[in-house]
């Protein structure tokens, strides 16, 4: 059974979730990827406020394809997360409560997650049309000039995600691969 969860995700909700849980996420999420992250960190370093309240917020790593007329958004699957690893600890220390992306994270991100009781979800890479179907509204709130990388506020309904790293640092990428591995390469 898939658990239903709703943003914002405060610490109490997050500690209820463990690696391996398949969830349906609803509520607000913010989109950002490579260039958007660089920009957020630059703003923070200048002492400026971010364009959204980062406390208990979720960032979804996505650069959607353009929407057709009458559609809310184009295809919108996750992009690979490790490219954001350099920026993520600072965002977590500032209140960000979770990320949605694909692929593993480095040690610095995982320790910042444990320190701040944060969570990392994977969405299915390439399932971009299916995910677009779960997005009920999309609004660009900043960095419009970045095109697909602009900062958007999305409202999602029953977005299918998997908890891949939980607030205690359990990492599904590591544990499951070992479990299913038959031979070793060497």
């Amino acid at each position, binding site marked *: 059974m898939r658990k239903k969860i709703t943003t914002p995700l405060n610490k109490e909700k997050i500690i209820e979730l463990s690696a391996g849980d398949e969830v349906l996420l609803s509520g607000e999420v913010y989109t950002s990827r490579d*260039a958007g992250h660089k920009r957020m960190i630059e703003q923070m370093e200048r002492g400026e406020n971010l364009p959204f309240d980062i406390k208990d917020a979720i960032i979804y790593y996505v650069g959607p394809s353009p929407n057709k007329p009458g559609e809310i958004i184009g295809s919108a699957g996750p992009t690979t997360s490790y490219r954001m690893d350099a920026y993520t600890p600072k965002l977590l220390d500032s209140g960000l409560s979770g990320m949605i992306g694909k692929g593993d994270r480095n040690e610095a991100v995982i320790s910042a997650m444990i320190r701040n009781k944060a969570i990392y979800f*994977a969405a299915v*890479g390439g399932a971009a*049309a*299916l995910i677009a179907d779960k997005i009920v509204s999309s609004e660009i709130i900043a960095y419009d000039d970045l*095109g697909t990388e602009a900062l958007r506020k999305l409202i999602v309904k029953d977005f299918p995600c998997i908890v891949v790293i939980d607030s205690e640092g359990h990492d599904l990428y590591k544990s499951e691969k070992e479990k299913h591995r038959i031979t070793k390469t060497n």
Partner: protein
Amino acid sequence: MRKINVDVVRETVKKLCMEANYYCNNDIIDALKKSKKNETSSIGSNILDQILENADIADRKKMPICQDTGMAIIFLTIGQEIYFEGGLIEKAVQEGVRQGYEEGFLRKSIVKDPFDRVNTGDNTPAIIHYDIVEGNRLTIEVAPKGFGSENMSRIHMLKPSDGIEGAKEAIISTVDLAGGNACPPMIIGVGIGGSFEKAAFLSKKALLRDVGEHSVIPYVKNLEIELLERINQLGIGPQGLGGRTTALGIHIEVFPTHIAGLPVAVNIGCHVTRHAKKII
């Protein structure tokens, strides 16, 4: 001499860009369904279902299977009896890509310079490979390539003494390293032999084959079968979250090489390995 107007090339490229991005090829759908039967992980099995449902939604709504609609890689196989009229073929192809990505609501993912990274705004330039062959037919193949998987590709300049075991190790370790980042289940293109760039080119070309279509060279076919089995024992599974379905297929191309070398290029493709073709 057969005359072909470059406008026909432009129109064809434009249509193929859209088709390749909206419609998942049947060979991939079949391979996904088949792999579901062997998948031991329940999360993995649910992921395969989502991938299949996604392909169906994209097809029905004529929207991109994946938001990363890729860098457009175009293969032109040109019969040498063709005479192109009406302008430059290169320009016609680039214009076709520009129109296809604009009119098809495809994502523009190309930056003008590797360092200043300003988007070109129309997904050009495409990468174009020309091949001149006999006859008067023109084959156009469009293969939009996403970079989640492209970034996990590697080239290994092995020594002749590394032999076939060294090549196997290079291929398997590249797939292992790619893990969940390349959106498994993957499709793996391998080029062995030639020079540095020839091996890389062959690995890309190998991705154009239908999934599971083996090499006609018997030892290469056996190598493909052995490696697919070993790759699916790595445990990576759908999206890297564990399971049997790490790759749907591996396609290997071989080519003569230098007495001192054994280049092995591994081009990682994801489950959205797109290609659409038209013969004119």
